[in-house]
């Protein structure tokens, strides 16, 4: 094949690659469905990150701010913490529970923001929802496509009176709640529930003062 024959094919391929996905954008997003909600949050947050030069430069505080405003209202951190604690949850006093939720939330926001600050030219692919309309617990499956390998990112949601809430996420096949269960149990076995709270507080303090590496 001569090279000038290949050029139109190449051009057509490039055009198809970059133009075709645009047609899918304009469909209205229905936030009353769990997948519609995730889609709306994700596209909103990603647009905000890409539009903010401060975040591109690595300003984590700005990402944390964004996460607290746009993502946290759609999560149920109480349930996340309760499930991560397992049987130990009942042993905690209401006061300890409140503290645990607050500290765990801070830790997760911090970690999540660190990951979000890496967003550059990624796109998100949404898989079809496998759920009945009457379901109150669903998993929304997505794949983040970027420069490296695709990252499967799934969200577990519950239906509450105030709308759908995310209470667990799965990154690369690892459910967050399940992975924290041993972490919490071991820490509680060693130092008790107050020890776990103290550990999380200390860690959050450390992370707040740490400078991001690049």
């Amino acid at each position, binding site marked *: 094949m001569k090279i000038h024959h290949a050029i139109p094919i190449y051009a057509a*391929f490039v055009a198809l690659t970059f133009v075709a996905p645009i047609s899918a*954008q304009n469909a209205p997003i229905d936030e009353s469905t769990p997948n519609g909600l995730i889609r709306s949050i994700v596209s909103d947050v990603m647009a905000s990150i890409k539009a903010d030069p401060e975040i591109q430069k690595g300003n984590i505080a700005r990402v944390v701010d964004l996460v607290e405003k746009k993502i946290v209202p759609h999560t149920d951190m109480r349930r996340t913490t309760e499930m991560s604690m397992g049987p130990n949850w009942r042993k905690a006093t209401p006061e300890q529970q409140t503290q645990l939720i607050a500290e765990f939330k801070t830790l997760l926001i911090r970690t999540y923001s660190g990951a979000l600050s890496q967003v550059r030219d990624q*796109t998100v692919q*949404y898989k079809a929802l496998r759920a009945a309309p009457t379901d109150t617990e669903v998993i929304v499956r997505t794949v983040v496509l970027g420069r490296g390998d695709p990252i499967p990112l799934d969200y577990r949601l519950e239906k509450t009176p105030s709308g759908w809430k995310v209470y667990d996420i799965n990154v690369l096949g690892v459910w967050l709640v*399940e*992975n924290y269960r041993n*972490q919490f149990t071991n820490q509680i076995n060693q130092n008790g529930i107050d020890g776990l709270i103290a550990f999380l507080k200390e860690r959050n303090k450390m992370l707040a003062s740490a400078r991001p590496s690049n």
Partner: protein
Amino acid sequence: MKRVIRQVFIAVLSVSMIGCATIPAGTQPSAQDPWESFNRSVFIFNEGLDNYLLKPVTTGYRYVVPSVARDGINNFFGNYNDIYSALNQLLQGNPGLAAKGLMRVVVNTVFGLGGLIDMATPGGLPKHKADFGQTFGVWGIPSGPYVVLPFFGPSSVRDTFGTAADIESDYLLRLLPDVALRNSLTGLRIVNARNNYYQAGDLLEGAAIDKYSFVRDGYIQRRQYQIEQSKAGDDDEDSTRPFQNPYE
């Protein structure tokens, strides 16, 4: 420089070999990790290797090599690995994914400057990584106890055999007659692999309470997930088109 590296290497190796690492008191024994004490000592060895050698080298790599070139290098090795992913997809009984994997290699080699640019992913052919450890898992071979391998990191008895098969079937470097070039490529490949989780490594450090068990539990979950996905024949057939946000 070589002597320094060797000294550091020997120091780390001897420290890790002095004895099995103690398991922190109160740690719940994991049914999947009966060799925890041994594994922890290898884990410490790997961490030392990473802290004193691999991470500093990768930091230098990021400083010297511009990001466009790093992407190209990553795509090149990724394109090569896609051949093996396709082979394993076939062995796992997913001919659809195997065919798509091969299409990726063809598209990226022909249109992506020999694999330096990943044209297939934005074109609707996302990567589906697969290795021999997964293939054995799909065939029904149980993972066996969790093992931390020196240099390679988290694994299991099954995945150790998988890794051996991955290496055994890897012909790229073996066919190269030039020893110096072969070694440089292997080095570059290792640094590229480390670079892929450069920032993720720091995040992990912050997120984990006990890094050893955090990595272990994550590894076990992830491998299980990959095998289940493959068994389900997850072929993306039900997925929507790649979504791009309108504000770009």
